[in-house]
């Protein structure tokens, strides 16, 4: 432990040199910018910068990449909250409550709780990274396909938290998403499914295209269709721009819980950033004292998932640094960055280049602090965007959405899909079907399928493998409790009511 702190303070000496501070600043600025623009993610930015940084000093450019990664995670939530267009799948959940808050004039507190929550979570997770990396990684690689499948089952159960009023409509939406998840190459056999000879469908349906189509385009159509009847008043700011004492009181626990969910799941080689945000949203919805506000703009529903999202980003760096395991697109490109300098991340890196590893970890703290300082003053500016007259704002959102989609995948088919999903989103809104479960289905369906089939292939078809490890059993038990507890309580309440 003492050695860790000595190494970390050595790292701060490296991170706080003027040149490296400048790299970190450039990184977070770039990261925030690309996070705000839909379609251009941190992965693409880092990839484009790799050849440019070829001649730079390795520590400096890796510090810059880390800044881009953290900055992208920060920026992604801004568009989610303000214009209901999640730039990446991990900030989809943020849009649920965040955009409601923005529409009710509480965009300021929503952005602030996201920014501060990201800072808190990023800091906690970076501490976790510094202290526990080697031990936690051992646990993480012990996760087999059966354990992942159990985690997916737990995530599926929590989806009901996003269902809204009617479970039947929620299930319909979820199953539509699961169906879309079947499109594309079957990862286990390499055969194409439901692609109807359209090559663009071979890789499956892009999650951001579905999310932006359903959320942003669907909403623009919805607003347009209602203008003739009555205009929804969009209030840029109601009450304080800043978080009230009440907001703080309701935010700090979700930040901590979100960090605790995000960091370990992000550290799992196949954990990802999406699942912790689903879990965090479900947990906050269960624990809140204001259940009536969920779906109408509950601040807990922004604070928790945003913290989870950012904590998972630090979690992702853990397997990368300690094992050389890239578990996200950005991490994979950062790995290429290491290799460009002839460095191989892995157990030996901590021994061979401690200056680099600890400099990088220390610069994560620095990047986090910079992002907070950078983003809080911007809140006022961002919120002003909502003061743009509605027709202009929504026209802008349509242009932005189309641009983002084309930037990710320049193909007319992709644009057509965006339009179809937009129409679908409009119809779902019109007939009161929740949208989030459909996207959750598209994200979780293929993951759960692949893990289940891998588990069964490894056990030669023996289904008991699914309950064969303690981790899987615990996760499945949690899922069972989450599924049955509300039913039991309801039954109990009815029973008691009957007794009275």
């Amino acid at each position: 432990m003492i050695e860790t702190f000595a190494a970390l303070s050595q790292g701060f000496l490296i991170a706080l040199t003027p040149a490296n501070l400048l790299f970190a600043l450039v990184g977070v600025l770039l990261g925030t910018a690309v996070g705000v623009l839909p379609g251009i993610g941190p992965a693409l930015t880092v990839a484009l910068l790799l050849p440019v940084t070829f001649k730079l000093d390795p520590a400096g450019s890796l510090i810059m990449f880390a800044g881009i990664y953290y900055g992208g995670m920060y920026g992604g939530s801004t568009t989610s909250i303000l214009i209901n267009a999640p730039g990446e799948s991990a900030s989809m959940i943020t849009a649920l409550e965040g955009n409601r808050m923005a529409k009710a004039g509480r965009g300021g507190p929503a952005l602030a709780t996201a920014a501060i929550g990201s800072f808190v979570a990023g800091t906690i997770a970076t501490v976790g990274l510094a202290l526990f990396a080697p031990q936690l990684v051992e646990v993480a690689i012990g996760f087999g396909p059966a354990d992942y499948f159990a985690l997916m089952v737990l995530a599926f159960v929590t989806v009901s938290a996003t269902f809204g009023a009617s479970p039947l409509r929620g299930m319909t939406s979820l199953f539509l998403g699961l169906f879309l998840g079947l499109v594309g190459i079957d990862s286990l056999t390499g055969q194409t499914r439901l692609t109807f000879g359209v090559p663009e469908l071979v890789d499956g349906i892009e999650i951001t295209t579905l999310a932006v189509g359903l959320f942003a385009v669907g909403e623009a159509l919805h607003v347009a269709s209602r203008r003739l009847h009555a205009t929804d008043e969009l209030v840029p700011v109601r009450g304080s721009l800043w978080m009230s004492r009440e907001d703080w009181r309701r935010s700090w626990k979700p930040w901590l819980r979100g960090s605790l969910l995000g960091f370990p799941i992000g550290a799992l080689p196949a954990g990802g950033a999406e699942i912790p945000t689903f879990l965090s949203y479900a947990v906050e919805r269960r624990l809140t004292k204001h259940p009536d506000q969920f779906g109408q703009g509950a601040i807990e529903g922004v604070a928790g998932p945003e913290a989870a999202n950012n904590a998972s980003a630090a979690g992702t760096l853990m397997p990368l640094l300690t094992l050389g395991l890239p578990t996200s697109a950005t991490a994979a490109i950062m790995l290429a960055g290491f290799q460009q300098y002839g460095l191989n991340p892995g157990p030996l890196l901590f021994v061979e280049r401690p200056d680099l590893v600890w400099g990088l970890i220390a610069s994560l703290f620095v990047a986090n602090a910079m992002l907070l300082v950078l983003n809080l003053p911007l809140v006022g500016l961002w919120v002003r965007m909502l003061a743009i007259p509605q027709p202009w704002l929504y026209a802008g959102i349509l242009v932005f959405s189309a641009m983002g989609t084309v930037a990710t995948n320049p193909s007319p088919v992709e644009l057509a899909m965006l339009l179809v999903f937009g129409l679908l989103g409009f119809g779902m809104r019109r007939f009161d079907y929740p949208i989030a479960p459909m996207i959750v289905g598209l994200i979780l369906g293929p993951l759960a399928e692949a893990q289940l089939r891998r588990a069964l292939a490894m056990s030669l078809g023996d289904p008991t493998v699914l309950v064969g490890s303690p981790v899987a059993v615990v996760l499945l038990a949690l899922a069972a409790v989450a599924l049955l507890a509300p039913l039991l309580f309801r039954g109990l309440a009815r029973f008691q009511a009957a007794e009275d």
Partner: protein
Amino acid sequence: MSFRTSVRRVALAAGLALAAMPGAALAQMELKITAPAGPGGGWDAAARSMQQALTGAGLARSVQVTNVTGAGGTIGLAQFVNTARGDGSQLLVNGITMVGAILTNKAPVGLDRVTPIARLTADPLVIVVPKASPHQTVQDLAAAIRAEPGKVVWAGGSAGGADHILAALFAQAAGADASKINYIPFSGGGEALAAMLGGHVTAGVSGYGEFESQIKSGRLRALALSSPERLAGAEVPTLKEQGMNVEVVNWRAVVAAPDISAEQKQALTAVVDKMVKTPQWTEILKARGWSDAYLSGDGFAAFLTAERERVADVLRTVGLVK
């Protein structure tokens, strides 16, 4: 440094640069390279490295890299064949994975439509087992496969890719029924590596570079390399040395558009021929850990045809292609 010496140095450098460029017309070339995959992957890296070497050495005035992602490169291939026809300034990066993807995706456009230019690199694959595995040598693993092919669980890259092909050919060489192998594809090296380290599978296949750090730290035991020769700096024997007649390498190549003239083909080949001799290219190969496997002209065309036939055979055997 005084002003005069610096002028002299610049003049000297310019003179050297001119001397190094026998075909001054070549430097006028404006190339467009399509990487049929997203940024960050091997094909993207190859395209951007070519860009770096070609412009750095002054072999081309400008090089533009375009990423066309999707479907194992077959979307990029189709777009290239349709839009670049007869254009002598365009190149497409490809590799063994594309050969397999064309077959498994039943892609409308195949590699028979492009003009072969050159193979650039060929990285060896490595067969590894977890540290605690009972299999000490390739022969142990071969015996296990011979006994019960389904019980040996392989982890590797996407279905139908180079890793899968090596697993199938290995089973065949071991005398087992290759259609019975239990191969579990993972997306990206990271997850497959985690499955190996976690001891969830019997054996794993991947590019040597991806597992190098784990092999050196002793967490994975490397049984064999799939290349014809040993790799410098790695104390891992090849399959051939150990009596298994199997050879699969993850090669990357560049091809040109359909229907280009013989002169255009010659000019493109000449540029690539020169590029691989530049110090910039050597430096990139070293930094990226790529093994040089340069082969151009008819040699490469024959190699491409042979590889297409071989991959098709293997994929039929394992049941990916009917």
